[in-house]
């Protein structure tokens, strides 16, 4: 895809989700912001919805990752098994190295 950035992270990398609530459209829910997870899958690069939402072309395409979290890391008093997971697809510019 034109204007595609090389992926910064690989499967198994530990990452933290950036914290932020821009006034404009974005796809990173607050319940994962500031939390630490692990890269589970590299999906390739996709046009940035933050630009598409305003009629932009979404380029450069952003590498998209599926990030895996331990539920016990996301929620205090999580009512489930310690092994339960939450997976979510996050664009690279929302990820930080640990």
């Amino acid at each position: 895809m034109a204007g595609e950035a090389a992926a910064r992270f690989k499967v198994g990398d530990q990452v933290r989700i950036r914290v932020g609530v821009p006034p404009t459209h974005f796809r990173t829910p607050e319940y994962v912001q500031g939390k630490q997870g692990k890269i589970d899958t590299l999906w390739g690069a996709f046009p940035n919805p933050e630009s598409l939402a305003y009629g932009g072309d979404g380029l450069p395409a952003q590498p998209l990752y599926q990030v895996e979290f331990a539920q016990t890391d996301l929620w205090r008093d999580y009512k489930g098994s310690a092994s339960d997971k939450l997976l979510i697809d996050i664009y690279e510019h929302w990820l930080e190295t640990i």
Partner: protein
Amino acid sequence: MPKIHDRGGWPNDDPVDHSEHEMEEWERQVDALNGVLGDKGLKNTDQLRRAIESLDLTTYESLAYYEKWTAAMEMLLVEQGVMTTEEIDAKVAALKQEQS
């Protein structure tokens, strides 16, 4: 405070409502219109989401799914200059006249 649409983990004591909802014909056509406008490059999914997210909290929580789509679609069509609010108002009045 998360945005109105960002619902993961919001406190909610409501049971999941399993009732089946028959789709109204007008809803089916809104669904289709959304697809047609997308295919013609007049809107994309992210614009529709962004427009829905700009609704106030009460409206977001009280409107049905396709009602939100309709509100969003109007915002986008007017924003893009495809039609004006006045034109839509006039057409609504005309349709009401036809119905009576």
